[in-house]
């Protein structure tokens, strides 16, 4: 919700950040909470994105100041962690939450006996039964509605869309019921549902199966949207989404399911509203999410060789934007490049451009450049499909132009 931060002018959601005008980035004034729960030692990286004017007094139990995950160093210092693929990380997060809370249930097409079309729910039906891991008929509109109805009573369903594009059929339920029931009932009902599924452009899947629904859902008031990109944040975001009282849409990407990474053994939950600093830098802020993060990092290697120092931020939270992290970065580098997989018109990048311009206009040395996919249905032919999405070479060129 970029609208949250539109109080520009004298007043100050940013008075807190202006105090950080210097280069040092020690403890941000926002509160970082870490809780250790009774069940073993659990790290909870969570921060409420509070920009209150009153000075924050962070709880100092196990304080991790920023929920930073730098590539290759994601695991916590204590244990060595274990290696797994992204879909396994999602499954681990899901299973831990199902174990913890009997109200958590999964529903979707082929999630039960088949194990999930991307194996995210493999083995869960055998463990938890057919009612808790429910194979639905092919009826997105009604089973999403069913999940929302169940959520109204207190259950915590996770609705899986086999491909995000299929959830267009459930748009009415997601928009009108999921997003708005908490408001229209005056706060009586909460809808703690998680709607997740893979989207994005894959390997020649064709136009209808390569959709990026975050651009359509972003205006719905009342929902939160997050996009995961690494096994570490996939597991953390999945757990956070399940624990959240708000409806959360978790966007995964078809091509990222087989990414391997080492993640901590301890339990951890990430914050739904925070962005991730992938690579700190000085010259330009590159904002990205999901699969484009990897294209950006690839371009970053080339850029570093050419002498540039890009700061790469994986925004993770698509609604609301983490304008705090983004703002800090803009104030440092004064140049912004947005790289996204959404289409140019009405995509996440378009909203992010507007939000940054409205809030940080004075800090920009150059207009914001937004690289997005072309406004075309994704073609089948491999070469054409390559041209619809942003490639690393284009990112390099854009940075070079921006930094002139």
């Amino acid at each position, binding site marked *: 919700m970029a609208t949250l*931060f539109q*109080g520009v002018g004298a007043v100050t*959601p940013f008075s807190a950040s202006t105090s950080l005008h210097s280069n040092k980035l020690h403890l941000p004034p926002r509160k970082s909470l870490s809780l250790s729960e009774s069940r073993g030692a659990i790290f909870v990286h969570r921060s409420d994105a509070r920009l209150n004017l009153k000075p924050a007094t962070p709880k100092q139990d196990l304080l991790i100041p920023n929920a930073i995950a730098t590539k290759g160093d994601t695991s916590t210092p204590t244990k060595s962690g274990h290696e797994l693929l992204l879909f396994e990380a999602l499954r681990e997060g899901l299973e831990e939450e199902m174990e913890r809370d009997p109200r958590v249930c999964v529903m979707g097409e082929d999630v039960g006996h088949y194990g999930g079309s991307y194996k995210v729910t493999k083995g869960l039906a055998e463990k938890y039964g057919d009612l808790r891991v429910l194979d639905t008929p092919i*009826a997105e509109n*009604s089973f999403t*509605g069913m999940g929302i109805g169940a959520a*109204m009573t207190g259950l915590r369903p996770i609705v899986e869309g086999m491909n995000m594009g299929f959830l267009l059929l459930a748009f009415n339920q997601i928009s*009108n019921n999921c997003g708005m029931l908490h408001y*229209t009932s005056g*706060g009586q009902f909460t809808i703690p549902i998680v709607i997740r599924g893979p989207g994005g452009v894959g390997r020649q899947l064709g136009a209808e199966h390569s959709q990026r629904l975050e651009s359509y859902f972003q205006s719905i008031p009342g929902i939160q949207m997050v996009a995961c990109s690494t096994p570490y944040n996939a597991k953390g975001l999945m757990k956070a989404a399940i624990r959240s009282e708000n409806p959360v849409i978790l966007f995964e990407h078809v091509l990222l399911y087989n990414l391997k990474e080492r993640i901590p053994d301890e339990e951890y939950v990430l914050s739904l509203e925070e962005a991730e600093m992938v690579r700190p830098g000085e010259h330009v802020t590159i904002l990205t999410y999901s699969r484009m993060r990897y294209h950006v990092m690839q371009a970053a290697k080339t850029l570093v060789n050419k002498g540039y120092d890009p700061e790469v931020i994986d925004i993770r939270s698509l609604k609301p934007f983490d304008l705090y992290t983004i703002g800090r970065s803009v104030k440092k580098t004064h140049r912004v490049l947005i790289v996204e997989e959404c289409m140019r018109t009405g995509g996440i990048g378009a909203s992010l451009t507007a939000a940054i311009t409205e809030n940080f206009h004075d800090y920009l040395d150059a207009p914001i450049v937004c690289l997005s996919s072309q406004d075309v249905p994704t073609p089948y032919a491999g070469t054409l499909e390559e041209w619809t999405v942003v490639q690393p070479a284009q990112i390099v060129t854009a940075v070079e132009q921006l930094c002139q």
Partner: protein
Amino acid sequence: MPLSRIASSSHASNLLKPLSAALSLCRSISSDSTSTLTIETSLPFTSHKCDAPPRAVDTSASELFSFFRDMATMRRMEISADSLYKAKLIRGFCHLYDGQEAVAVGMEAAITKKDAIITAYRDHCTFVGRGGTLLEVFGELMGRTCGGSKGKGGSMHLYRKQASFYGGHGIVGAQIPLGCGLAFAQRYSKEENVTFTLYGDGAANQGQLFEALNMAALWDLPAILVCENNHYGMGTAEWRASKSPAYYKRGDYVPGLKVDGMDVLAVKQACKFAKEHALKNGPFILEMDTYRYHGHSMSDPGSTYRTRDEISGVRQERDPIERVRKLLLAHDIASEKELKDLEKQVRKDVDDAIAKAKESPMPDPSELFTHVYVKGLGAESFGADRKEVRATLP
């Protein structure tokens, strides 16, 4: 007041003779207000893939009296809402339920507050039936903070969580999968409760109904789908919209029952029967043959697609309140004067509620941003002009 009569009388025989559509007068009186009266429904039930329940309905004098009082309250409330709308105190959409009160009242008599009800936008009376107060209804209709949804929902968004009333939905048919989800949750938590999902003859043509029905039948969910067939989907008569207007049969493999929806006792019997069935065997369809006197909503006069004769004909012959009034008089449960006094009292209660609601304030501008999210994001939130309105999310 009317019950004192019963206590003084000494007759104990019950009414058992079948009644034709017009009730005959001068039956014997039950000895006290809670002893069982058995009354026959005016029309038999028509069933699909199940046995019809018996026409003889067990009720009592006090129950009949409460039916009258509740329906009179609902009728008065809807008529007053009509006047308020014309006085521009209620804006937007206002869908009135007068004529259909028997469905709401009869259903309540057969179930508990733990059974869930979910309906579409014609929800004022269902809300009251679930325990909502008149003040909450009028407050919500006029957009005041005393309203059931604090003025933020409006006519189509009345909810009552503590009484398992899940609303109040504006999009035709979208509540049906939600109802299926409520039933799923009841099955998941192993509660012995059912969900009544109400929809209209217009919504009966929605695909999501059949999707939900399929799932409910597949997993034996305790869902009872109730089609309130008032024969008009806004301006389109049912024969022009549905190839098969036998909505109770449309479930195919799901058993169904067609009920005279203007007879509160028939509704009660059918809902009781459906609840027993659903707890054992899964989904059930009820078609309530009912009628609305007003148009679809306040912007629809209701007479362009049906004749005034038809409306007044139904009002004369099938009006649910008149039917109960005749029963009360026939069984000497109350006198004419007592019923008239009751109606006066109801009118006064409604007027009082309206007056009180009018005094209630409009929501504070900061309320614009509350309840969008449950857990506040902790950031400050500003109004459109960015300077004046400041709200801190909870």
